[in-house]
């Protein structure tokens, strides 16, 4: 038997070096320690925290999740312990795990984002920040930052001013023209983009004649949205030069390959963590196997090789 060649799985996101391209998506891997025994932060190239806000948030009324055809809806409502408790209680335990930590944050106003970004900037254990810009912007009348290029740009610019490390902006697919948002955010100083967040969705309980979710509507994730995610990635890849992180419905290494080939430097795993906590490990060995079979020595060679 031939000796297995070692595949170089390292990737770099605008200076942020990761040992592999598989990242845990925000909100699906908690604060990094909940899966102990099933999956470890160190299995991933990086772990993105649940969205953190300045003050703790209780989240939305239950039920908060519901299965749909090849997908799930969630209306967690950014439930989180708030920045202080994150820093004091959650972070130290995650730091022990020696994984690359990316903090994901959200705010109701640009000021809130900026304040949080400043605080995160000071934490030496956190080398990168992901902005969740898909939450309602109260000041702008309920329109999310993520759906308007100029608001997205203004937000990114303001955060860029105070945040000195790797700045990732996570885009919403609930837009007509992802390219416009991607370009605006790139120009405003983002180092990388993650796409996509969940699609707006809803489900109805026909027996109770009520929405299944306590919050009425929620965000759709899982295999059902993979085609939409790939479409958005494809459009963004042809609009910006900064590195892209693809996500949405990735369950196995074949899914991950679709994203890499379309233009992603790295991928995030969300819903798959619930279904199969060893998804990251399985995907990594699948990626290595694919590279081996195809005589590819570095995973970065796959990015954007789509022939159109």
């Amino acid at each position, binding site marked *: 038997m031939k000796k297995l060649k070692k595949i170089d799985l390292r990737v770099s996101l605008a200076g942020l070096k990761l040992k592999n391209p598989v990242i845990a998506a925000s*909100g*699906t*891997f*908690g604060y990094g320690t*909940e*899966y102990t*025994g*099933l999956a470890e932060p160190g299995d991933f190239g990086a772990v993105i925290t*649940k969205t953190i806000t300045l003050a703790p948030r*209780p*989240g939305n*009324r*239950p*039920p*908060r*999740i*519901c*299965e749909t055809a*090849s*997908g*799930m809806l*969630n209306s*967690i409502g950014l*439930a989180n312990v708030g920045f202080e408790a994150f820093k004091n209680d959650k972070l130290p335990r995650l730091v022990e795990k020696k994984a690359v930590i990316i903090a994901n944050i959200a705010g109701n106003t640009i000021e809130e984002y900026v304040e949080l970004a400043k605080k995160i900037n000071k934490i030496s254990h956190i080398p990168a920040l992901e902005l969740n810009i898909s939450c309602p912007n109260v000041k702008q009348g309920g329109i999310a930052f993520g759906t308007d290029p100029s608001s997205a740009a203004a937000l990114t610019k303001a955060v860029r001013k105070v945040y000195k490390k790797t700045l990732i902006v996570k885009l919403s697919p609930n837009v007509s023209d992802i390219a416009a948002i991607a370009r605006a955010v790139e120009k405003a100083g983002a180092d990388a983009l993650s796409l996509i967040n969940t699609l707006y969705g809803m489900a109805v309980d026909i027996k109770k004649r009520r929405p299944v979710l306590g919050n009425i509507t929620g965000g759709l994730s*899982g*295999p059902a949205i993979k085609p939409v995610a790939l479409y958005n990635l494809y459009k963004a890849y042809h609009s910006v030069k900064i590195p892209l992180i693809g996500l949405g419905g990735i*369950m196995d290494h074949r899914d991950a390959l679709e994203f890499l080939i379309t233009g992603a430097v790295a991928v995030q795993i969300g*819903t798959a*963590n*619930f*279904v*199969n*906590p*060893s998804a990251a490990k399985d995907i990594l060995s699948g990626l290595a196997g694919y590279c081996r079979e195809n005589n590819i020595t570095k995973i970065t060679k796959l990015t954007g090789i789509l022939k159109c």
Partner: protein
Amino acid sequence: MKQYHSIQIASNARVSDKAYTLSFKIPGLAKSADPGQFVHIRLSPGSNHPLLRRPFSINDIRGDKVEILYEVKGSGTELLSQISPKDTLDVIGPLGKGFDIDLRKRYHLLVAGGMGIAPMGFLGRRLKSLKLKHELLYGCRSSSELIPSDIKICSISSDDGSCGKKGLVTSLLPDKLESCQNPVVYACGPWPMLKAVARICQNKNIPCQVSLESFMACGVGACQGCVVRSSDGSYISVCDKGPVFDSRLIDWDQDCVV
């Protein structure tokens, strides 16, 4: 907790109109589980239909075999009922916080409504091995839904009177509680039943633990998808803080989640 891939099914047999018991051999899980804990099962490993895992209480542990007792409710449990011993499952467990057995209590009353019988087999066996006096108060809709149990039954009720006393299991509870000393109640069943049991116990100042249900995604406290409202108004996740809670911790005025 651990994830056990490709678990071969040992048996999958019908035990009543709509209920089945399924067993599989996982020595590690069998050894470490406590009554009231649950397993989170991926019903069709390799396929994504259904997508999410399904949580089931551990009904019993026999040697290194783990047994669950389930009712066909929707498409996931329908699929499970058709699975045969040559098929495999992907099982995570043991998960959650089980019943907290108070060794000082003189009388341990198990109250089960419908499929709420599921965790009681394991709890009864544990109480027996601890030589703690225990009995089961068991309510079901009708005799056709009655599931045989090893535990000593003190009373049975049924909605249609086809077995035991006609009526709700909760109507038997007050008398029973009167007749015994220093009791503790462990209850599992539909939300309205648990609510009634909790109220009765709280009124009599009798400790009561309830096992709750909720839609679940991660099963380990990471997603915050399975929360219920607690009596202090905050949300608590059922999968890791429960599924068994002190009944006083729950806000019983909320709508049932499942």
